[in-house]
């Protein structure tokens, strides 16, 4: 490990966290308010600008209210930091950090771009290029539940406690479908390195948009070329995307799954007793989690930083297959663009879909998504395995067993439901 590597890594940590993600967090809150306002035929925050008149100018600069997040941040810092007398002080103070930190830590495996070459060094646009990317993300992201649960418990007050408990159960439930829904993709790619996954998509078409390919080898044996039913894979991938995205909504406590902070039932949920910057940390953690979630979806399903449509190869590669020195920056732009589009999608959904009931949420997680993801694994496996075992075997043994599995799961669920209904009445 040489000094350059350490310095570069530190710079990357600083750059991606403080120059990319934190501003993105700040402006997602702004975007949230503006977009929701526009959806509701309102204006939203459009006033906070720079008080230029104080410096002798004729007019204040409004900038469409773009300075609003700065003002919010300042307010968070300067508001009275109130610690109620009845809380468990240590945990109460740790909880906001426990919520915000995991969201930022997960960033380190997300590939922000391909690579840039500066001063003769090729620098990968990812903080830690490790071989277990998604697993690392699940491992760390699931820690954020500690923050929320601790906040609920340490507040020593009934509504935050209920919020914390809800959040805990919700996250555990959806982590299962989150993990399971990713298995078909891992089966398809055969590796866990996110950079490799993105590079793969750059050359061979995005997972959900396989419209182009370079040299026709998507899977080692030339799956795309050799047979005509590669499109069949779109079905399990689509299901994966749907389950994964929905689970991310649940994991980040976004509407329609924001039951831990359900105002109508729980006052403010787990952060009821928090104020000023500690509350802002929860807020930031939530938005950071949303950004990481968007980034992950983009990375896995929409080609990450790649421009797509074969443009990466055509425009940004030198003849010998290396990236041009500035390719990383353009890829960073593409990545951020896609991520922002997804953030907007998150916001759009939030202001469209009403909140679920808690039992509906649990039912969706355990009865629908769990089974769907499980079935999806078998389906993807069968389609991937089909060329190996031959068409006849697939039709004779593969599909019948898949049907049986699906039917079994369906009836078990149904039977459970019947029983429950009887019990209630």
């Amino acid at each position: 490990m040489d000094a350059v590597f350490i310095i570069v890594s530190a710079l990357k940590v600083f750059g991606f966290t403080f120059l990319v993600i934190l501003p993105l967090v700040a402006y997602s809150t702004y975007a949230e308010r503006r977009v929701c306002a526009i959806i509701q035929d309102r204006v939203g925050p459009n006033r906070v600008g720079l008080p230029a008149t104080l410096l002798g100018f004729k007019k204040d600069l409004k900038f469409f209210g773009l300075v609003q997040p700065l003002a919010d941040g300042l307010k968070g810092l300067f508001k009275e930091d109130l610690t109620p007398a009845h809380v468990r002080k240590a945990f109460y103070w740790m909880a906001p950090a426990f919520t915000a930190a995991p969201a930022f830590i997960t960033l380190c495996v997300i590939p922000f771009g391909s690579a840039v070459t500066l001063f003769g060094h090729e620098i990968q646009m990812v903080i830690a290029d490790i071989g277990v990317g998604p697993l690392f993300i699940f491992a760390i992201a699931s820690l954020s539940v500690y923050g929320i649960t601790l906040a609920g418990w340490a507040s020593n007050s009934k509504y935050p406690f209920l919020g914390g408990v809800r959040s805990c159960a919700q996250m555990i439930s959806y982590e299962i479908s989150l993990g399971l829904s990713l298995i078909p993709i891992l089966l398809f790619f055969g590796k866990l390195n996110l950079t490799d996954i993105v590079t793969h998509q750059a050359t061979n078409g995005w997972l959900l948009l396989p419209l182009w390919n370079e040299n026709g080898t998507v899977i080692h044996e030339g799956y795309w070329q050799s047979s005509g039913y590669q499109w069949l894979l779109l079905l399990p991938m689509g299901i994966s995307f749907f389950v994964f995205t929905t689970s991310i909504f649940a994991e980040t406590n976004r509407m329609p799954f924001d039951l831990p902070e359900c105002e109508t039932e729980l006052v403010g949920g787990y952060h009821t007793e928090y104020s000023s910057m500690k509350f802002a940390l929860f807020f930031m953690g939530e938005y950071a989690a949303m950004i990481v979630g968007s980034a992950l979806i983009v990375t896995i399903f929409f080609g990450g930083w790649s421009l797509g449509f074969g443009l990466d190869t055509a425009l940004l590669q030198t003849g010998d297959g290396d990236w041009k020195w500035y390719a990383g920056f353009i890829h960073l732009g593409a990545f951020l663009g896609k991520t922002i589009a997804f953030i907007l999608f998150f916001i759009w959904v939030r202001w469209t879909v009403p909140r679920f009931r808690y039992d509906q949420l649990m039912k969706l997680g355990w009865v629908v998504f769990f089974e769907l993801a499980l079935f999806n694994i078998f389906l993807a496996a069968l389609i991937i395995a089909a060329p190996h075992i031959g068409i006849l075997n697939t039709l004779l043994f593969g599909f019948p067993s898949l049907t049986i599995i699906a039917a079994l799961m369906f009836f078990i669920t149904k039977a459970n439901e019947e029983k429950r209904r009887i019990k209630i009445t």
Partner: protein
Amino acid sequence: MAIVKVKRPKLSWHEHLYLPAILKGLGITLKHAIAALRGKAPGAEELASSGLGVTMQYPEQKWDARLPEYYRGVPALVTDEQGRERCVSCQLCEFICPPKAITILPGELQSDNPWSKVEKAPREFEINMIRCIYCGMCEEVCPEQAIFLRQDYAMTGGTRDEMVNTKGRLYKIGGMREGLVNKWNKLK
């Protein structure tokens, strides 16, 4: 009261999926967003929208010209055509005022006053605008038609004292009002 049992509607399979409904919802919100951005949000015209959504941008645009006749703004005292203060400090408004915003100190008119026949006038008359809820009960209860709610609504002050309208200020806001009570006219 009879109990009406409402049956849950039977959902068809595509309704059960919920996805079409969610997509429809997304469509509606998107439609609204686009209309709002184009300044064509429903009701934008009659609400004098600023161009984005239906919202009016307050200090730049104002609704004043469209305020209805019955709008209840700042309460104020008025004088009659002869410049006599109409209030005789009967303290009915002080009594009726739900938030107890009005304080009156009654006073006697001296015999050298041209209106000494009226005998009574407020020595001090204060309306605390921090307390006032603009209900208009004072106007309704006043037997002398001396207090009216005006169309002004922008009351600001840097201190609590500034938000208390004294007698002088109340007459300045209210001005003169013609007609109605002329019971105290000397000629009558």
